[in-house]
Structures are given as C-alpha cells and as structure tokens.
C-alpha cells in the first residue's frame, strides 16, 4: 500500500490531475451550464491547438531547454502557407511542406545558436520570438492576406460532433510522442540529457543532437498548431498566438514539468493543457469577468509548482 502510494506520488503529473478533478467538480457545482454537451464541445474544440504546442514545449523542457518563440512560430507557419498559396502560386500541399520547413528551420536556428554559443535558450528564443513575429508581419504585407479556399481545411478542423478533427491529430501526436518519450531509448536520452547533461554525455549520448531534435520538434508542433487555428478561423493573422508561449509553458509547468529539465510526463502536458482550457471556459460559465483568466492561470502556475515540489519531497521520504 505504502509502495503504491509512493509510486503514485512520485508521478510528476499527480498534483495536476487532482487539481483538474477539483476544478471540474467546482465549476460543475457553481456553473450549471459548465458540464453540458454544448459546453464540452466548446472546451474540446480549443484544447488541441494549445495541447499540440505544449507537447513540443514540454518535451524540450524535459531535455533542459526552453522555447519562447512558439507563439510567433504559431503565426509564422500559417502565414507562410497562406501567402505561398495565395501570392506565390504554390499548390496547397507544397505550401504546407514549405510552412513546416520554415518551422523546422526556426527550431534549427534556435538550437544551433543556443548550443554553439552556449547561451541560455531563454535568450535565443526570446530573440526568435521577435524575429519570427516580425517575419510573419512582413510576409502578410501589413494586413491579413485573403484565405485561399483550396487549402484542405476539413482534414484538420472538420466538426465531428463532440470535437473537431484537430483532436485526432492531437491524440495521434500525443500517442506517438508519449510512447517515444516514456518507452523508447530516444526518450531515455531526452530525460538523461535534461536530468544531468554531463552524465548523459559521459555515457555516450550525443546531447547536442538530442537537444537539436527537441528544438525542431517544438517549432514544428507550434507551427502545426498555428496552421490548425488558422484553418479554423479561415484567416491568417500576423498577431495570432501572441502570449501563447507563456500559456504553453504554464501548461507544461502546471502539468509537473520541471523548468530545470529531466522531469515531466506526457499525461502532465495533457492535464496541464486541460486545466488551462477548463479554467478559461469555466470562469466564463461561472459569469466571472473574463479578465480574471490570467490571474487564475498565474496563481495556478505558482501553486502547482509549490505543490509539485512538496509532494515530490514527501514521496522521496516514504519507503
């Protein structure tokens, strides 16, 4: 019994799961409209777009690095796609390939600069936050370009009842990345690289390549999520996703991912994302002024980290 409890409490996502349960119960009691089919739809429609970003941000954090540029990449990639089809005459799939290439390039540059000059990724990606946003704005030509009708919107955002097809992409990414992170040797290298880089390197892991891969994955997923949002809105806005990087990091942290690297879980990413979406929606349903949303997310982030550390230490002392 003691052992099961210890194993349970050692899981990084445990506090987030409990908090999510409490928040759902709370909103269900206080906001009668919260736990309805219609409202679940609203929540599930928006979940994948943040969730896909959090997968990349969280895995990169486990590898011991940080990406503040995801919000800007979220705008840049769909801008590339829309402009490529609308102004440069690309067919839709080549345009999407070009967009993802741009995302991978941003990730590569983030990683290359960080690792080559040995500077904090916080700084590199802060710079990239501005640069990628600027590129998106320049590409747009100052106003949102017309949305080309030939883009394959249905594959990504078709309404399937309780959720959109974006949910299937999110689940697909989550499954593949979850298995990779927790059950493959590559996942072991990611945890080792973020947990104790010197040890990983001394045991023969190419930590530079591991981090590069995580940077590129993170940018790719941010761009993919931005594409989904743009397809849903049918409009490529240069200002899309401003501040999203902080929400994504908050979701990962709330889900038990350590800022110092080496600790985190895929379930944590999902539950952290869920908490943010539920609170965002629940506050509206409970008729609280929507401007309290950021306050709630901020407070939750701090409380989650304190609880995570406390629970972790408690679990460690148990036998």
């Amino acid at each position, binding site marked *: 019994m003691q052992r099961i409890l210890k194993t349970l409490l050692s899981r990084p996502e445990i506090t987030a799961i409990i908090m999510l349960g409490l928040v759902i119960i709370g909103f269900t009691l206080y906001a009668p409209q919260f736990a309805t089919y219609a409202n679940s739809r609203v929540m599930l429609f928006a979940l994948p777009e943040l969730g896909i970003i959090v997968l990349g941000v969280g895995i990169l954090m486990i590898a011991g690095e940080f990406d503040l540029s995801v919000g800007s990449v979220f705008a840049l990639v769909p801008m590339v796609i829309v402009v490529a089809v609308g102004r440069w005459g690309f067919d839709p799939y080549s345009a999407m390939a070009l967009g993802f290439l741009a995302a991978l390039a941003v990730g590569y540059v983030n990683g290359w600069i960080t690792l080559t000059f040995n500077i904090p990724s916080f700084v590199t990606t802060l710079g990239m936050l501005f640069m990628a946003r600027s590129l998106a704005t320049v590409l747009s030509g100052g106003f949102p370009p017309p949305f080309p009708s030939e883009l394959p919107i249905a594959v990504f955002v078709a309404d399937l009842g309780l959720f959109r097809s974006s949910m299937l992409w999110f689940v697909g990414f989550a499954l593949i990345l979850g298995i990779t992170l927790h*059950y493959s*040797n590559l996942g*072991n290298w990611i*945890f*080792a690289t973020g947990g104790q880089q*010197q040890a990983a390197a*001394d045991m*023969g*892991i190419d930590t530079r390549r591991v981090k590069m891969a995580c940077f590129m994955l993170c940018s790719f997923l941010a761009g993919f999520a931005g594409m989904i949002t743009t397809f849903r809105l049918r409009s490529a806005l240069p200002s899309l996703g401003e501040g999203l990087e902080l929400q994504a990091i908050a979701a990962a942290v709330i889900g038990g991912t350590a800022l110092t690297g*080496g600790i985190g879980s895929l379930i944590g990413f999902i539950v952290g994302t869920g908490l943010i979406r539920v609170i965002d929606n629940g506050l509206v349903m409970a008729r609280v002024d929507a401007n309290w949303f950021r306050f709630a997310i901020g407070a939750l982030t701090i409380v989650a980290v304190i609880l995570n550390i406390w629970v972790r230490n408690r679990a460690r002392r148990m036998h």
Partner: protein
Amino acid sequence: MAEILREHVLPKDRFVQPGPNALIRCVGLEKWYGGVHALVSVDFHAESGEIVGLVGDNGAGKSTLIKVLSGAHPPDAGKIYIDGDEVQLRTPKEAMARGIETIYQYTAMVPAMSIARNMFIGREPLSRFKIGPFGLMDRRTMVDHATRSLSNIDLTERSPDTPVEELSGGQRQSVAIARAMYFKSKLLILDEPTNHLSVKETNKVLDYVLSLKEQGIGSIFISHNMHHIFPIADRIVAMARGEKIADIMKSDTSIDELTELIV
C-alpha cells in the same frame, strides 16, 4: 619549481615497461588546452587484471589522462593500443565499445531517473519494435539485469525503479560499478571514486575493485588519498605538470616515499 620536481623523477629507464600482452598501451600522448600543456609526451599502460594507482597533485594531468582514455577529450598527438591494436578514442561511446568503462567522482548518474534506466543510459536494450538505432526499450531485460546487479552489490532492498537520487553516495557508486561490470569492461577507470564516501562505503568500493581484479579486469584508480590507493594497487603511476614522474611497482616503494614525491 620544475627543477625541484625533476629531482624527484625516477630515472626514466627505471619506469615499469609494458608487457607483451598489455591491455592498454599509450605512447607519447600530448594534450593542449589553449596555452596549457596538460599532457607532455606521456607513456602509460595497464595489464589485464592489474590495479594501477594514478596519483598526483591537482593540475598534475591525471584528469586529462583519464579524459583521453575514456574518450571524452581525444589527444592532440600520441598513439593508443588496446590488446595490441592501435585505436582512436574520439568519443566516450568508442571507448566504451572497446571495453573501457569510467566511473566518475560524481557517478555519472541522472538523479531523477530510476536505477534500471540509469544502468542502461545510451545502451538501452531494444525490443523488436525498432527503426534503425531507435526503438522501444526492452523494459523486462532492463529490470531483470538491474535487479541482478543490485543483488550483486547487496542492495536487494531497493527496487530497480527507485530513482537514483534516493540512494546514498556510496550506493550510487556501487550502482555505477555494477553498471560497468554488467557491460563486461576490460578496463575500469575510477576517477576519485571514494570522494565524499564514508569509511564503510570506501572499503566496499575498494573491495569491488579487488574482486574485479580476480575476474581479470584491470583498473586505473585515481585518488588524492594515498591510503585508499596503496593497499589495493599493484603499481603506482605518479604525475606532475603533465608528465609521468614515476611508474613503479608498489612493492618497490612506500606511502611515505610517494607522498614526498608528489607533494
């Protein structure tokens, strides 16, 4: 200063020479770090099942020599032979593939990861679900071998799923040694393995090194504590200012003589 040290250098012709079947033999190793000449034409060797004590003050070049042998920092010049074949040790992976395992002062463990995962970092056994070098880990094999290794080092009360951060320094060092033993190394490099360990834990580490000798595994044991090295070493190599200043069988010297030489 250099002159004073040189007075203590044994005549080079009195250095112990490698046998015909030396496990590892290095000739004329050179290493520069910027303007610092960290290894000055160092010859070094170890025989199978031999325990070589490597001593010297801080900055003497011990760590540099170890980094060269473990593949962490390739030498600028010089040759390395393993079992008579010339080899390049460009990365830790290459050194490990040649049977050289290094145990670091800080144990080279990832604290938040389990014992089983730590034992196989970078060398995870894979299941049949794999693509190229990537694949799903064979968790059962990992746990089985970790469990067996834990019983070899008398840590049976610990589950292989225990995070390494819950182990004491000595227990971590034991796991690191168990890891090296599991991968059937020929040569074990122990870099200050007894630092921060209690007397009891230190004795345990020393016992392991002796038991490895019985299995024919050679060891290079680095320590600033002559009293840890001397009882178990067969031969002592002393370094100063990047040079080898002594290479002598333990039976031909004494703790006092060596201490005087390197301090």
